């Protein structure tokens, strides 16, 4: 084709573009729908008039009603949590007896009879095995109950209705109604909650849900809250009120978490994330009878097993690190003790102590092992003999008095307890969760942000509480 002819042609094309206009994409879409409509009208025949079943309409009016929507939601979620706690109790103690009380000594004795050096059995059995066993026995039962129940509600079609009910509240915080669901999942496990944010298909709101999921107290942190609240808050109150007050303290911490979820969502959507694209969509699917077996299978495989596996993989090296820190000594003082005394001056500023800070650093794989690590480190640091199971071996007490005695020996006060509860809510996510955040966002930047932002908040809040407390009580 001669050059001039080509030039002319291109010129025509360019001028035609202005006539066609800017909405070519819209026109194409409309045409595709029109064609599809014509075809479907030709080939699909319906007998009778299709209508929405009236019971579905009635159910929708109850589940999303002005007066009934929220109470029904609270009731159903309470039932799920109650079933989880009640149902997990027995299998949890069973697993813990089996894995920690029975198998652990057996492994130790087998290794010693075949003449393995004690550092090998210490590192691998007391360290690696015990950490993994602990994580499994605490995590598995609640997750195996919580996630299938949640999936059943999802399958039935109820969860999108919760998102629908709650959307107004979350919209004001710049978030998506479905974040109510990922938050609830976070109460089971933050890593699973973050995987669940895939249901939010708007990029900005999804990032918000991922970053703030850590403010939902997970399964691994509830026991810490309950233990510390009943030991310290309950003890500080008159006996008649002890139970109520310690329960109220735990609820207050959980509510503080919800407060931070909304506050941080609001701030993020107006500052760092305002440039991220946002598109809302929420389908309310028809109600369906849940497919129970399939649900059990998928929620076990997709959520429980994958998350548990990740947790175990991360717990094992941490177990090794915990054991090594407690057992490697330089001039008769363990590495752990050096680090504890290094952390102490800073820890006092935020009303904690070096032991607690070190425990949070080395127990990063799972919040479940924070308390056992604190106990072991406290005994090590105070050089108490006859308590616990030796350097680097995590343990728990079976009665409350033993805790109180140990903690008072370590100079814990009511302030330490309050700060520990706050710090348990506001610190970095566990490494399983951090890894999951990285997998889901694919961005190192947001992973760092989600990791460091809660620690910063935690330091600020505990610092404020401690210093204000000191003004009044010292």
């Amino acid at each position, binding site marked *: 084709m001669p050059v001039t002819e080509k030039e002319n042609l291109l010129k025509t094309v*360019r001028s035609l*573009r*202005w*006539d066609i*206009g*800017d909405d*070519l*994409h*819209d026109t194409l*879409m*409309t045409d595709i*729908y*029109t064609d599809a409509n014509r075809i479907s009208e030709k080939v699909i025949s319906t007998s009778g008039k299709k209508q929405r079943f009236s019971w579905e309409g009635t159910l*929708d*009016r109850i589940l*999303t009603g*002005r007066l009934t*929507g929220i109470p029904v939601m609270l009731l159903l979620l309470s039932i799920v949590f109650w079933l989880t706690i009640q149902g997990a109790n027995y299998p949890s103690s069973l697993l813990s007896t089996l894995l920690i009380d029975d198998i652990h000594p057996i492994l130790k004795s087998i290794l010693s009879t075949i003449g393995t050096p004690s550092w090998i059995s210490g590192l691998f059995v007391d360290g690696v095995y015990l950490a993994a066993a602990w994580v499994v026995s605490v995590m598995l039962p609640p997750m195996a109950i919580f996630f299938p129940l949640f999936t059943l509600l999802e399958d039935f079609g109820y969860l999108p209705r919760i998102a*629908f*009910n709650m*959307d*107004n509240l979350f*919209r004001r915080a710049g978030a998506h*109604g479905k974040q109510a669901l990922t938050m609830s999942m976070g109460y089971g496990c933050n890593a699973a909650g973050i995987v669940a944010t895939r249901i939010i298909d708007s990029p*900005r709101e999804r990032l918000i849900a991922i970053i703030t999921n850590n403010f939902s107290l997970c399964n691994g942190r509830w026991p810490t809250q309950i233990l510390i609240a009943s030991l310290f808050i309950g003890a500080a109150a008159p006996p008649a009120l002890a139970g109520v007050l310690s329960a109220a303290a735990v609820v207050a911490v959980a509510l503080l978490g919800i407060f931070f979820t909304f506050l941080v969502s609001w701030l993020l959507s107006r*500052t*760092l*994330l*305002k*440039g*991220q*694209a*946002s*598109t*809302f*969509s*929420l*389908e*309310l*699917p*028809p109600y369906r009878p849940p497919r129970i077996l399939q649900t059990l299978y998928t929620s076990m495989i997709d959520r429980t097993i994958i998350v548990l596996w990740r947790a175990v993989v991360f717990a094992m090296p941490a177990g090794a690190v915990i054991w090594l820190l407690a057992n490697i000594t330089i001039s008769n003082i363990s590495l752990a003790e050096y680090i504890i005394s290094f952390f102490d*001056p800073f820890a*006092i*500023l935020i009303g904690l102590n070096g032991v607690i800070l070190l425990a949070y650093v080395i127990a990063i794989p799972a919040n479940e092992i924070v308390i056992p690590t604190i106990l072991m480190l406290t005994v090590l640091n105070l050089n108490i003999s006859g308590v616990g199971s030796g350097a680097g071996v995590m343990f728990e007490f079976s009665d409350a008095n033993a805790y109180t005695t140990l903690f008072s020996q370590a100079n814990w006060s009511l302030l330490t307890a309050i700060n520990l509860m706050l710090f348990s809510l506001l610190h970095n996510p566990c490494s399983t969760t951090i890894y999951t955040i990285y997998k889901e966002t694919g961005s190192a930047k947001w992973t760092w942000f989600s990791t460091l932002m809660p620690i910063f908040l935690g330091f600020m809040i505990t*610092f*404020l509480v*401690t*210093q*204000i407390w*000191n*003004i009044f009580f*010292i």
Partner: protein
Amino acid sequence: MIIDPLSALSTTVIVLIIILILFWPDKGIVWQLQSNHKNSQRVIQEDALKQIYDHEYRNKSATLRSVAGALGFSMDKTSDILDKLMRLGLVSFSDAHYTLTAQGRSYALRVIRLHRLWERYYADETGFPEKDWHKQAEKLEHSTTPSQAAELAQSMGNPLFDPHGDPIPTIAGEIIKHDSLTLNSLKPGNAARITHIEDEPAVLYSQLVASGLYPGMHIYITEKGNDRVRFVAEGEEIVLAPVLANHINVQLIPEELAEDDVSESLINLNLGESAEVTSISKACRGIQRRRLMDLGIIPGTKISAELTTASGNPTAYNIRGAMIALRHDQAKMVKIRRTGSE
């Protein structure tokens, strides 16, 4: 070891305030310093070229005073910049005003192309609010390489207009003239501004004036046939024969400027009522628009309000057999025609 709590608290507060002053988004000292540093000579020159182009486009003469005013610089500084541009052969000076040379005009159009492309990008592909589009484009227009620009344009399907309805210059530096479209070339659903009414022959012209049409008027086309054009202007419906319509030049504008008085939005639909979608407002752009269309909301779709929450926001609609919840700010973008209640 206990540190005095009051001094610990006040030290921390002071440190936090300093960090905030330094790093506060957009207004922090660190960011201010960075952006000042970026205002190199080239950036200032490009801005000056753009301002002179803008004067010419609006048929105003670019004097030293008016260019200085537009740039926000002193007369001395502006005069230095313009002298430099004249030495570069981009600007010429006569009769106390500045004009662009052919080379200068093509340079200005390249910068304007980048500006409008970036505005379009920010409007369509990001969540930044409208007031930030221009600000971001002002920064990026100076630092985008030609290959980046080509990539950007291609990724958006070579858009023709920026979000304000101004045409984007082509890569060859061509820009559509305001009066190159006639009323006849519009399609139903188009919104336009009248830019020019041909005053010859006088008979036709007086007929057009009698219809109440004037340049600058916003119109919205409702019907286009071989024998007539029907459109709405300022709430009144006007029908013209094609021979008359051919004498009116128009510029396409974003639909939302003209459509408000034309059709109702989905937000007004009460529970149990049904309607037919007539359009999605042009103010709904990019992925938000694609999302609505993906849900099946296109002209002609039947839609009915089914279910709402305590606050009324969001509301669930029946769209092609599926229950879809839409928020108010989405629903108000969907324009409907009522078809009564079922």
